[in-house]
């Protein structure tokens, strides 16, 4: 029985990465390495205004003074920051009228990923700002959105066209000196998305960016900025797949969200970058700083993430609940297999009165992987009646893996109600037995239980994404779990 289960777990956890292909597109590089000149070149190549260059240089100078953090429960090999190409763009930025003009190879790549770029798929109501290696290639539905006054474009475009907005909000939530990787990103970020939802507008469709890390040795430094003005609503989807590659790739992204009064932003991520092979060779290093500022009263931010990929994940989507009655929510599924390492969680900083936060984190570890939840709930002195509930569960599949929880609660207000719960367990033999007894195979039973275990989080994803998330869970953990 136990042997059976082990075998099935092994099969289930032995699935190969299915999205490991490499598209040969001519790419324009600048030489390896990082210096002030490189920062200047990047800025010049993107034809950026003076203030932007200043922003980058300030960040770069600050970065020079910083050290890579080592507090996470991760074993990070030394990263040689001089061995990375900091800028790569598809050679010609296509300015296209219709789909026919898109590079067929690029389209094929997207097709393999199932990105709804072509007409029929547009009907599914997803506007896509597709990013291949840093530069925005194709934006759809732009006109529809423009009618409503919604801005959804690449951040480079926004810097050119809406400099005031960008200048006002860029770096306001994650300042350039926030942490080592944030500083690096601020200095060299290549591209990303910019979203602005004007007052009172409910974005009619889910905004989505698919991006891929594509060319060899290219670190990707994505920068996303979302501003939701009073009474607006937007649901933003981020999904990633990366081709199989032996050499480690560095990814240090920043996402900043600002919500004004009564605005709501829902940010969903499915992350399935190359996790390295079964021996733990290769794979993406994913060091992301994501933070939302609930600036206005009654605003709400919801982070949902499904993390299945990357060799190393270092990611803490956070909410600063500044406005009174603001709400932050965090739903996470992190699955690690083989030699993957994940140290992920959230920070909920309660500053305003009557603020609420909810944390639901589900970790699944298999193989020889390590999966940590690290979270902070902070209630400041002025945050009257703050309320938090955290639930962090870990599921262990296999006796070589590790599951860890490191929550921090810092409370300086007596009206706060903060609760934290965590459990760690494996799938009980009694649970499997119960299913077997009712005629289910052990394989189905494991699938059923894992599925039920993460359901609370998957349910929070938009429908299209939920389907993809299920698929990714299968790739990470299975042959037949699902």
């Amino acid at each position, binding site marked *: 029985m136990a042997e059976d289960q082990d075998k099935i777990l092994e099969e289930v956890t032995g699935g190969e990465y299915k999205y490991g292909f490499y598209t040969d597109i001519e790419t324009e590089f600048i030489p390896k390495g990082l210096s002030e000149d490189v920062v200047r070149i990047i800025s010049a190549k993107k034809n950026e205004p003076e203030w932007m260059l200043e922003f980058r240089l300030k960040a770069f100078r600050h970065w020079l003074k910083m050290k890579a953090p080592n*507090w996470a429960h991760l074993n990070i090999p030394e990263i040689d920051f001089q061995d990375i190409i900091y800028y790569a763009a598809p050679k010609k930025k296509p300015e296209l009228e219709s789909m026919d003009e898109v590079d067929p190879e690029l389209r094929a790549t997207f097709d393999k990923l199932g990105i709804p770029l072509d007409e029929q798929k547009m009907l599914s109501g997803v506007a896509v700002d597709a990013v291949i290696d840093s530069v925005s290639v194709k934006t759809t539905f732009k006109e529809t959105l423009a009618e409503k006054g919604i801005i959804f474009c690449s951040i480079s475009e926004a810097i050119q066209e809406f400099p005031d907005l960008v200048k006002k909000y860029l770096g306001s939530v994650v300042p350039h000196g926030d942490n080592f990787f944030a500083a690096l990103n601020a200095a060299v970020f290549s591209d990303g998305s910019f979203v602005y939802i004007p007052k009172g507008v409910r974005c009619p469709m889910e905004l989505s960016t698919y991006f891929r890390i594509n060319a060899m040795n290219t670190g990707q430094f994505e920068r996303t900025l979302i501003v939701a003005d009073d009474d607006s609503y937007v649901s933003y989807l981020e999904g990633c797949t990366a081709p199989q590659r032996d050499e480690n790739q560095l990814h240090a992204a920043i996402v900043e969200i600002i919500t004004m009064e009564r605005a709501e932003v829902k940010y969903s991520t499915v992350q399935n970058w190359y996790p390295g092979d079964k021996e733990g060779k290769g794979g993406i290093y994913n060091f992301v700083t994501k933070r939302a500022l609930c600036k206005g009263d009654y605003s709400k931010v919801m982070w949902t993430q499904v993390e299945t990929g990357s060799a190393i994940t270092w990611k803490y989507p956070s909410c600063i609940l500044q406005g009174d009655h603001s709400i932050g929510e965090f739903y996470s599924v992190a699955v690690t297999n083989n030699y993957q390492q994940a140290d992920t969680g959230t920070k909920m900083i309660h500053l305003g009165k009557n603020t609420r936060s909810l944390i639901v984190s589900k970790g699944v570890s298999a193989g020889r992987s390590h999966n940590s939840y690290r979270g902070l709930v902070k209630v400041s002195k002025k945050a009257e009646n703050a309320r938090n509930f955290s639930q962090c569960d870990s599921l262990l599949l296999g006796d070589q893996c590790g599951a*860890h929880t490191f929550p921090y609660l810092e409370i300086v207000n007596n009206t706060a*109600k903060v609760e934290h719960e965590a459990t760690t367990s494996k799938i009980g033999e009694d649970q499997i037995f119960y299913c077997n007894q009712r005629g289910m195979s052990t394989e189905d039973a494991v699938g059923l239980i894992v599925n039920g275990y993460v359901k609370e989080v998957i349910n929070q994803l938009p429908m299209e994404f939920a389907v993809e998330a299920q698929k990714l869970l299968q790739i990470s953990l299975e042959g037949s779990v699902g």
Partner: protein
Amino acid sequence: MNVACRIIDLQEEYIKLFNDQLPLLQSGAPEKMNSLREQAIKIFKDKGIPTNKVEDYKYTNLQPYFKGNLNLAFTNESAHNDVTQHFHCEVPQLKTYNVFLVNGWFSAKESDLNLPDGVVVCSIRDAAEQHADVLEKYYGKTAPMEKDAMVAMNTAFAQDGAFIYVPKGVVLEKPIQLVNIMTGSEDRLAFQRNLIVADENSQLKVMLCDHTMSPQKFVVNSVTEVFANESSVFDVYNLQNQHNLTTQVAGIYVHQKRNSNILTNNLTLHSGITRNNIRVTMDDENCESHVYGLYLSDKNQHVDNFTFIDHAKPHCESFELFKGVMDDSATAAFTGRVLVQKDAQQTNAYQSNNNLLLTQNAKINSKPQLEIYADDVKCSHGATVGQLDDEAMFYLRARGISQEESRVLLMFAFAYEVIEKIRVEPLKEQIRGLVEKRFRGEFDKCDSCVVCGQSGSGVSCL
């Protein structure tokens, strides 16, 4: 001899003090203790007195408290120099074997201890002669000085402490009470090093009672090493009752063998700055450990409980519960690390930390941690921070109970969960009464011992 030292540049001066006084430190101390000093001071030099930059001391910066003009007694006589009054501490209905330690030095035991055959209670210095083998085998084995600078500091400086040995199969009915008294006319720094060994099939209960008898500033760094051998049952109750100028770093390090069952309960009823380091290593199968704590603080008191339960072997169970009530500007911190090592299958570990904040200025930092490297485990932790339940309050109010009475009832019910775990009936009753009184604000906690009601020497409430 008393040596007054003015400590400003911390590490350097403590190291200088160590080097200057090494002959005194070593004189009369057991060889085993002396043999670890050099290594310990090296580690201490390396790490220094922890600040909140050190992750494990994130919520307690010890440096400011180890500064200033402090007296350190290097001989037993000087420790007793200005002890004028005798102290007696007893819990009604509870017969105990009483042992006294003054400023970290073994003072006296009551003459009629009448211990069962083979049971040894003495100074750790005396143990060197008659029980050298025990000291050799156990001293410094479970307190990890390479991990914690304060243990290293204690290992380097400690000269005395209590030694308790219970041989195979002996069951001690009465608890042994170690009364630690801090007193003197000068501000003092004291180190104390206890070693407790419960051999196979023995049963032992120990009460550690910490008192201050004069209003000076006291800084205490104590380490208690406990070895619970096969099938032994061991309880330790640490009753902390010191005035607001006291800084105490109290380490209890328990090492468990097969089938042993241990309980630690830290009752921090009154103190200045308290840091409790509790570490339990379950080094064999079928161990059971209960780690509890209750902290009631007010004024500017600070309590930091740091616990580390190490499940090194399979089939062990641990239960951990810490509860705190913070009033005025009190701050508290809790860290509960549970480590389940590789192959420690069939582990059950439960941990819970609940806190009540009574005022705007009270603070709590809670940091439960699970670190698990085995898969067949059931582990959970929970942490809550809140106030009294409105609904429960309403229920009581609806039944005609006054606001204040309801409040006391609910707070008491909250704290009782920890008191309930005390396995010595009269002590349980005593603490129960005390905690209730404390919530009602009925006794002057500054002027007397909360455990026995013994008057101190006019310790002012600061």
